[in-house]
């Protein structure tokens, strides 16, 4: 087996440009790795034929001197929440059985136009609702990492979620990059759990058109990669204004890699004091302190800042997101596409279809969302949550008056064992405690792999920047990555190795 699948996007782009190998060779290496790692269940649908066809087209373009740019011929994995023309799109749900869209999402179309090669559609929590990739109708994804000591040793671990399949595919060296979506941490938390880079851009940076909606005011597409530079490259191929999405920002697309390596001398980094929480594992605390030292060592200045409404972020999120989801998921009614379970009346058909088509977590959130929007509860829940959301966003605005970026842990723990926390939704929701505030404020944020815990499992550090200041975010993340020097790689599956 060639080792081309281990290359980063930047390395692969150079190799393609220098003629060291072809996109077809690169793609075949990734497809081989995909086949070899099938037991981690990272993909719902593999698309080798499409991949090889697009790789061939890319090689032909390059041979003709018409290569489009750094992403031309680069294989990527696509979260199965993006609608892809002619390819089954499931959102990880039974209710979309057999749904093959006749259209391509704007983000995946942008990448096709940039010459990227789709390897397949990755597994995810059902409708992106989850933090462990255990709610998928297509079964859980296994984290390529395994614990080398402690209670978790010898057990299958979760990859985080909801973009668990994408994170696992990148961590398992199947794809150099993957597309995810992040509503409350669905890119950043799995990136932390799998030792890779996961980035959520500013709300409005990427078009939501053609992405199966979970919570419209929070959903954003973003890249999962093995390096910060790759994340900047991949985002460049995804983002851009789209007239078909009214919430897409009408802004020019910058070169996110420009200035990436310019260093952070003089950069002001805020350390939000409210992110120090009771019961936070000492390892996380220590890694966070280490992160401060790394950034200081690179010439940045770390100062304490206050985000006083932080404690309300999680409850606010778990009102806003389910409220929007309860409405967004109303269209899955068995009438026009996907699963239909017949009934004696229209209402019977709805109940049978949605009862069977949606899993437990989706049903839970639809019920919560319906409840908080109901007459008599709307003001107490939804309106109050909107007000808190405004206050949380204002906290960030105030903090960013003094600092350029914020540094926090990405998640309160390393990956846990598949099956844990399943009966305790609140414990599961706590996974997103550090990522949710930036989501509510629509801010760009990134998780960078920074170290291993005592069991040998990866942990990430999290940076948050001002709206549309992805350039500073990437620059700080690059410096952090450089200082951390994280180069551990997972074995695949319990006792496995690659």
């Amino acid at each position: 087996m060639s080792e081309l699948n281990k290359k980063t996007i930047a390395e692969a782009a150079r190799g393609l440009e220098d003629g060291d190998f072809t996109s077809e060779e690169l793609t075949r290496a990734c497809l081989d790795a995909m086949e070899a790692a099938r037991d981690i269940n990272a993909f719902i649908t593999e698309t080798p034929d499409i991949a090889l066809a697009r790789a061939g087209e890319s090689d032909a373009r390059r041979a003709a001197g018409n290569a489009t740019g750094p992403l031309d011929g680069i294989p990527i994995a696509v979260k199965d929440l993006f609608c892809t023309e002619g390819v089954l799109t499931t959102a990880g749900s039974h209710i979309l059985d057999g749904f093959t869209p006749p259209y391509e999402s704007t983000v995946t179309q942008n990448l096709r136009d940039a010459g990227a090669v789709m390897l397949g559609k990755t597994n995810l929590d059902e409708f992106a609702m989850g933090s462990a990739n255990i709610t998928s109708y297509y079964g859980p994804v296994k984290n390529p990492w395994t614990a080398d000591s402690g209670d978790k040793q010898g057990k299958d671990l979760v990859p985080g979620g909801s973009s668990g399949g994408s994170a696992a595919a990148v961590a398992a060296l199947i794809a150099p990059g993957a597309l995810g979506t992040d509503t409350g941490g669905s890119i950043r938390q799995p990136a932390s759990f799998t030792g890779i880079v996961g980035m959520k851009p500013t709300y409005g940076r990427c078009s939501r058109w053609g992405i199966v909606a979970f919570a419209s005011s929070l959903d954003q597409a973003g890249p999962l990669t093995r390096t910060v530079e790759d994340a900047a490259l991949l985002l460049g191929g995804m983002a851009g204004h789209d007239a078909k999405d009214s919430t897409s920002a009408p802004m020019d697309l910058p070169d996110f890699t420009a200035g990436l390596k310019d260093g952070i001398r003089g950069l002001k980094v805020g350390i939000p004091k409210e992110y120090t929480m009771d019961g936070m594992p000492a390892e996380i605390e220590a890694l966070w302190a280490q992160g401060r030292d790394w950034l200081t060592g690179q010439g940045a200045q770390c100062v304490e800042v206050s985000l006083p409404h932080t404690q309300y972020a999680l409850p606010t999120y778990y009102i806003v997101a389910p409220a929007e989801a309860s409405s967004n998921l109303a269209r899955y009614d068995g009438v026009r596409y996907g699963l239909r379970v017949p009934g004696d009346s229209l209402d019977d058909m709805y109940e049978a279809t949605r009862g069977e088509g949606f899993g437990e977590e989706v049903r839970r959130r639809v019920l919560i969302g319906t409840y908080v929007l109901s007459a008599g509860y709307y003001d107490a829940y939804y309106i109050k949550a909107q007000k808190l959301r405004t206050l949380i966003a204002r906290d960030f605005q105030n903090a960013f008056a003094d600092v350029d970026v914020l540094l926090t842990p990405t998640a309160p723990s390393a990956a846990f064992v598949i099956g844990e926390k399943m009966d305790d939704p609140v414990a599961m929701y706590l996974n997103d405690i550090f990522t949710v505030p930036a989501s509510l404020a629509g801010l760009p944020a990134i998780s960078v792999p920074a170290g291993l815990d005592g069991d040998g499992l990866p942990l990430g550090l999290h940076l948050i920047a001002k709206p549309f200041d992805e350039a500073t975010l990437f620059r700080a993340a690059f410096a952090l990555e450089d200082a951390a020097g994280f180069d551990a790689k997972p074995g695949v599956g319990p006792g496995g190795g690659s």
Partner: protein
Amino acid sequence: MSYLIEGESGDWDVVIGLEVHAQITSQAKLFSGSATAFGAGPNTQVSLVDAAMPGMLPVINEYCVEQAVKTGLGLKAQINRHSVFERKNYFYADLPQGYQISQFAEPIVGEGIVVLDMPDGTTREIGIERLHMEQDAGKSMHDQDPKRSFIDLNRSGVALMEIVSKPDLRSPEEAGMYVRKLRSILRYLGTCDGNMEEGSMRADVNVSVRPAGSGELRTRTETKNVNSVRFIMQVIEHESARQVQAYESDEEIVQETRLFDAARGETRSMRSKEFAHDYRYFPDPDLLPVVLSEDEVEAIRASLPELPDDIKQRFIDTMGLTAYDAGVLVADKETANYFEQVAKGHDAKIAANWVTGNLFGALNKAGRSIADSPVTADALSELLDLMADDTISGRIAKDVFEEMFETGRGAKQIVEDKGLEQITDTGAIEAAVDAVVTDNPDQVADFRGGNEKAIGWFVGQVMKATEGKANPKLVNELLRKKLAK
């Protein structure tokens, strides 16, 4: 216009408010580029957005926003420069998204006025509560198959304005006048074609009753989707009588949604559970608020056409028409245009009489609208010219008009072909007068004996002898001269 329901306990007033759903005239739907033409084959005008495919997003059609603002300005209403689309959530098979995008807490148009032209020439102002934009649902067809229902999504996403009146209407007639006037204004503005039979306009009718003269507002019922002026009036008649009867039998009126059964001419309760909705409105996160600058609103204001109330005033002020005639003539745009063309170069009052009298009579009888009148404005103008220059008399003109209406031929042509030109040659008329006077000595004696009225009989005889073509004025003069001798 007082409308009282006589109950056993006394008289009752009826209080009416209407919610009119008017389809915005636009090539494309409110949030997608699909066509909106009436009568297309089922599901031929449906985009991915209209069918609520996964991941599809609405994008506001700015033209529809302009049309709504235009309508608001035409209703002399407050324009809200910040308005918000919300989702109204409910499940139905012809509602693909599982919610209707509508405006709720912050509509685009606030309070306004519709002026009714009453039969006695006075006017009455009916308040508008608000106007908001929303998308239509699709159509369910339950009569195509014994077991299954069919869905046509052509209407799904079509732009509607919901125009809500205040509870200012007091009789079925007033409600009818209000809908006609509103429709007229929308047609003048070009913001809704007002074709109720095609579903472009329909109304939800809110009705309550109260003891005559009391100021209270009692529980109202809402009868949904009534699609003609006549039906709206029937709903009010039936519903108000039903409520009075209920109160007088010590029954409660419950706030509820009712359906109109056109075949029976009555309303009935829609008690099925799917209508007991909690719509869970919340701002649609897929859409930004609609924000209008003052300049944008002013630009739309500057583009407004002359509206019926203004035209009516102009007809009264500059043409000397009565308020009633002017009101009738401006009731729809086609009539007003027709009249203005006919009135050009003619006596406005005569023109008004011809349009509201002969023309309307003939159109009514033939069941045609002014838009497809066989007698065009130019043709009627030509007829009026022939009268004005004394080529024909008024009496002959009526016959000529009838023939024009039947055959579509021109007035001049008919008059020439039939030799209907008025006889203004004094000699010819004098000969006829002489003959009548000579042949009827008894009547002459009668007249000369003081029976002035007998002159009418002589005129009739002369007209008969000249086949109605003699100029009646000349006949009269010559007869008086002859009989005076």
